[in-house]
């Protein structure tokens, strides 16, 4: 018997209409746990680097975390993995909600989609009965509209559905996969789903998820519950409101948005408005939020309330996640009222709430600079808000200039040309980043922005404060019960909090490089562990002093699964999973040259020092100077097969990658994909 996991994956070939229930190798659980780890293993084994994102040979994997479906609070994440059309690298996009636990209760750990359906279909998983069903009547429907229609069709209110909207159907590179108030947004997973002509996956499960050592596991879960209750009552003093508690930033609950609106950049990550948050603004935002928000809502088995049920006059009722509250408002230099009006439409279309507003703000900038003209944007409205609605419609239909913009800022800038490249100033690895521009280089964030496989800082950071505490009292208060620190680092990390900000102990030359590596390692590794267990980062890797940490996770995993895991072993699994994902990207051409934050991310940059920090970090990780995991590292992690593949392909020998050639090949391929997608567009825009 398998514990915590079901031990089966569902393999669906949409080209042939074949469905198989396949038993998985328990050894892989020991090596990678589950979720992202085992997703990566499948992609490494079955998707060679020659495969393009929009190829029938690309796989789209809906994975569940190892602890999803157990009664461990907050274990509910769905991990969607595939190749990203935008970055051309492995993407892993994650979401909370209810879908993953339901899949486990139906008896599967993953759904692995391969091939391409000739017609638009949806998948209906009802315990052992699995059907590929016609979805032609859902073509062009909004993501949530489609979910409601499917529920009615199946006559089952308890079914959990993930789906794409028009953006996914038209293969917009930043199309999301939507599910209730959650979405797998980053990396264009919705586009891959649309390319496979898969509109939705509906799941209903009624089976058991078993626990290996019930009493022990229950006791550990009780301790987590107790800590959650205490932690919710004790916000961390000396922190801004959104960082003092646990969970995703409680955007739907809090009124004070001074920090976001005055520190992050507006428009195309362009302008900081330090004076924005006046009393008048605060009052208006408070009223708008209180009038619109009917209820705070959660994901499966989690008491936090990171989402909101919104009722807006003239629009109706919809659910909203934390960051869409601000990204559209700030992208359009507008306000919360505008956010409440555009978010539901964007969600029905199914686009990434981080990327979409930036792409639209980028288009507005190009128009104002005369690079895009009235010819490109016929009848372009005067008003910024209306412009956003206009652009959103063009993008999701790939109409006119929307076709270029639908590929995101990086690719659009190169297609538009005429100097548009200069306006692509906020992407890393061709992916739009959160809009923040700062003064002094932060060497820890430099490493995480540069090297993170997630290409998304919000899910790499955590554990340590973003700025030093102001007083000794606050520092001592913070470190006195800081139980989350990894074994052996206690004194070192506490001392860091004490020293940081004192005298010369400021960025960029503090902390020393060895300490930078250790602190970054802690932040990143905790996320890789979460992504394998399915525990929400809001309870674990993201906040300060979270309920889950490196000391209680090993016994939780052990008692749930029956597999013996200790702190060292868990750390090693985190590293193994990360190296495997990196290996997939290395095989697809990722090198050191790609690992850089935007030039203007900090005003004060130190190129020589940055190179040195990156060198040392690569060494710390066991990677060579190009960022490629060395033979020794791979052997140590039990990934010798990766090394063999690298040797065969001559990965280590390619000292200098032929940048221009590779770029051009990729754009050529993108061209082909686009032509292809135009065909797809014609089908759908008639709707």
């Amino acid at each position, binding site marked *: 018997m398998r514990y915590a996991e079901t031990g089966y994956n569902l393999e669906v070939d949409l080209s042939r209409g074949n469905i198989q229930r396949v038993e998985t190798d328990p050894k892989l659980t020991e090596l990678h746990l589950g979720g992202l780890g085992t997703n990566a293993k499948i992609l490494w084994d079955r998707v060679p680097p020659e495969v393009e994102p929009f190829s029938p040979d690309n796989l789209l994997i809906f994975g569940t975390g190892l602890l999803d479906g157990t009664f461990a609070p907050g274990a509910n994440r769905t991990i969607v993995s595939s190749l990203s059309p935008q970055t051309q690298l492995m993407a892993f996009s994650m979401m909370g909600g209810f879908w993953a636990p339901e899949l486990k*209760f139906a008896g599967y750990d993953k759904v692995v989609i391969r091939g391409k359906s000739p017609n638009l279909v949806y998948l209906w998983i009802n315990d052992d009965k699995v059907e590929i069903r016609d979805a032609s009547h859902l073509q062009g429907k909004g993501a949530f509209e489609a979910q409601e229609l499917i529920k009615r069709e199946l006559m089952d209110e308890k079914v959990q559905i993930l789906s794409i909207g028009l953006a996914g159907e038209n293969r917009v590179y930043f199309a999301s996969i939507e599910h209730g108030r959650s979405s797998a947004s980053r990396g264009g997973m919705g586009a891959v789903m649309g390319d496979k002509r898969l509109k939705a996956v509906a799941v209903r499960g009624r089976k058991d998820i078993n*626990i290996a050592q019930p009493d022990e596991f229950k006791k550990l879960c009780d301790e987590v519950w107790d800590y959650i209750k205490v932690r919710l009552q004790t916000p961390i003093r000396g922190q801004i409101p959104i960082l003092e508690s646990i969970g995703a930033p409680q955007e739907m609950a809090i009124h004070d948005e001074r920090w976001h609106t005055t520190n992050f950049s507006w428009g195309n990550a362009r302008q900081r408005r330090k004076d924005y948050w006046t009393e008048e603004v605060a009052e208006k935002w408070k009223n708008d939020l209180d009038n619109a928000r009917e209820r705070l809502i959660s994901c499966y088995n989690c008491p936090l309330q990171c989402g909101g049920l919104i009722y807006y006059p003239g629009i109706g009722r919809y659910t909203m996640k934390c960051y869409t509250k601000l990204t559209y408002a700030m992208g359009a230099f507008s306000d919360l009222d505008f956010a409440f009006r555009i978010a539901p439409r964007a969600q029905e279309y199914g686009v990434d709430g981080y990327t979409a507003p930036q792409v639209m703000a980028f288009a507005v900038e190009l128009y104002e600079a005369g690079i895009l003209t009235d010819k490109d944007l016929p009848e372009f409205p005067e008003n910024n808000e209306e412009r956003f609605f206009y652009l959103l419609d063009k993008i999701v239909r790939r109409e006119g200039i929307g076709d270029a913009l639908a590929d995101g800022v990086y690719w659009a800038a190169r297609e538009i040309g005429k100097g548009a490249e200069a306006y692509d100033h906020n992407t890393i690895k061709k992916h739009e980043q959160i809009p923040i521009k700062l003064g002094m280089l932060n060497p820890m964030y430099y490493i995480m922005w540069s090297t993170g496989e997630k290409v998304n800082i919000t899910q790499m950071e955590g554990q340590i404060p973003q700025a030093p505490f102001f007083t000794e009292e606050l520092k001592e208060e913070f470190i006195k019960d800081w139980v989350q620190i990894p074994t052996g680092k206690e004194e070192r990390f506490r001392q860091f909090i004490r020293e940081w900000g004192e005298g010369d102990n400021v960025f960029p030359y503090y902390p020393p490089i060895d300490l930078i590596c250790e602190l970054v390692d802690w932040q990143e590794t905790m996320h890789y562990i979460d992504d394998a267990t399915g525990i929400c980062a809001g309870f674990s890797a993201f906040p300060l002093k979270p309920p889950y940490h490196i000391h209680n996770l090993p016994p939780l995993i052990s008692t749930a699964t029956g597999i013996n895991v200790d702190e060292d072993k868990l750390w090693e699994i985190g590293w193994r999973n990360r190296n495997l994902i990196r290996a997939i990207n290395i095989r697809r051409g990722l090198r050191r040259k790609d690992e850089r934050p935007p030039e203007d991310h900090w005003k004060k940059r130190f190129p020589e020092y940055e190179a040195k920090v990156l060198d040392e970090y690569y060494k710390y990780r066991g990677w060579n100077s190009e960022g490629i995991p060395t033979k020794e590292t791979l052997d140590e992690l039990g990934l010798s097969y990766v090394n063999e593949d690298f040797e065969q392909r001559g990965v280590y020998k390619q000292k200098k990658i032929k940048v221009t050639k590779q770029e051009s090949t990729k754009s050529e391929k993108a061209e082909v994909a686009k032509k292809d997608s135009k065909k797809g567009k014609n089908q759908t825009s008639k709707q």
Partner: protein
Amino acid sequence: MKKVKVIKVDVDKCNGCRACEAICSAVHSSPMYSSTNPGKSRIRVIFDPANNIYMAVFAGEYTPAECAGRYTYTIKEKKYDECAFCRASCPSRDLFRDPDSGLPLKCDMCEEAELSEPACVTVCINDALTYEEREEEGEPAEIWGELKVALDSLIIKYGVTAVEETIDRLASGQLVKTKIAKN
């Protein structure tokens, strides 16, 4: 005097997380906490975001037939289906029936598990569920264990005699043997 135990439901405080369902199914699994399966939970959240309805209902009596009632109630401008309030394990829906055996499930206030309060209340830290005990006139209510709920439904369906006979045959090992022989 009898002790009356009540789980109070505040529909405005529910955030729809279904922690109650998860822990209920774990408490009632055998051995305790050995599995989770909301399909076996004795409390279910009626979940309808499009109408802002989030309502926990805990399982009541088994009923062998559907009722005729199909009213809707409007409370605070929200329309509730009559079934949304109904706690019965009833043939019209798959709520509160064991998905494996089809036998009815009934909330026992976690008495069989001997917990100080129902487990669903403990995990509902937003207080959508609260627990109350009070004394009332009358005979103490009997605790309805798992087996009794199941047998009761079988008696309603097949009659006392048939159930008795089957149990006798089971007790003599007859049916068990047949099953083993078949395997």
